[in-house]
């Protein structure tokens, strides 16, 4: 067990602006209507800065990084 970070989207807040997918295409793709689909599992260490940026740049503050217990 180790501490890890996962991305979560507030589906009600999310407006489909798509910035997160532009900033973090490694983990986020958009569906046919412009809403983010997240890769499952924890955010790899080397992508954490970009994930943090995606969280901060979301115009409606719909995406967050959460600490999770993650089995490896």
């Amino acid at each position, binding site marked *: 067990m180790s501490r890890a970070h996962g991305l979560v989207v*507030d*589906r*009600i807040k*999310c*407006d*489909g602006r798509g910035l997160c997918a532009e900033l973090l295409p490694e983990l986020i793709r958009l*569906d*046919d*209507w*412009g*809403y983010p*689909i997240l890769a499952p599992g924890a955010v790899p260490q080397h992508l954490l800065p970009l994930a943090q940026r995606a969280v901060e740049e979301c115009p409606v503050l719909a995406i967050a990084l959460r600490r999770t217990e993650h089995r490896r």
Partner: protein
Amino acid sequence: MRLLDSRDHLGELPRVGPRFIDALESSGLAGRGGAGFPAGVKWRAVAQRSRGDAVILVNGAEGEPRSKKDRVLMCARPHLILDGAFIAARVLRAGRIVLYIGERHTAARDSMLRALGERPEPERGLVSLAAAPARYVAGAEAAAVHMVNEGLATPTNTPPYPFERGVDGAPTLVQNVETLAHAALLARTGSIPGTMLLTLAGAAARPGVVEVDEGTTIGEAIQRAGGVAETPRAVLLGGYFGSWVEPERAWKLQLDHRSLRDQDLGLGCGVIGLLPARGCPVCETAGIMRYLATESSAQCGPCFFGLRALADACTRIAEGGADPDALRRLHRWSADVRGRGACKHPDGAVIFLSSALTVFAREFAEHASHLARRIA
């Protein structure tokens, strides 16, 4: 003792305490609102958090279009449902009971209010009434709580779940009326009746509500209600969030939550719909998908846009105007939409659709190829 054919008012409430939750858990009673969640687990979760401020939300919204069993029960056994609510209030130390009843179900509401008028104070004074809008999602737990709190019957993000923070921010038990009636009989007789209410719809000889023993097969349940009016092409088990099943398979299915779940099926709210063989399964599926798309509460993009796109694609296939990629898109969009709403509405819709694409694979392929043939 059964739910529907007993005298309604059974006299003074039995004495029950916190130990009743043990009995509820070992009875294995599963919620009858649709999700089949174990009632004992729910009661325990509220009991652990209640400081004498818990709320009992009696769920009689019955937003499922084909379902009638909750209304029938509210009309036939209002006192039994109230017993369940009052027992829950004692066991969970609740100070408030809300009767949440579909706004169009006026006979059910009047029956419940008449029975309430016959109950003594101070219990009667705990109870208030809230009207559930005639929308599919209005009966979902979080939507029911939202309606009572803010007058909006739309789902909210969970957690917090109603058992954590529900009506007025207090731990809240949201429980279907039939489940409460079963709990009331458990408190009174020491055992649950072991029956379930079903709504038979479509090509049944006598559509309507029946009470059957758990473990009865669907075939037996339908036979007991007069059989089929015409040969069915498929059975819709569990309502619009349920699954299409081939009749040969459906007839042998035993009606109990555990054995159905083992086969990836569910009883949902107890609707069993028979699609007649002369009907078009693709058109029927498209119609239900259209309904579910319209009933999205339009809060989450993947649900609002995704279900619409799925319904449009189904309609085009049904009308024979689809392009050759239409079926592939249905599969891809179904996978994309699943798990991406604040509530389970999109999930229910795509589970239903995926059963259609399996059971009616031939019909969908033939419909979808209409245009291809026309071009060729």
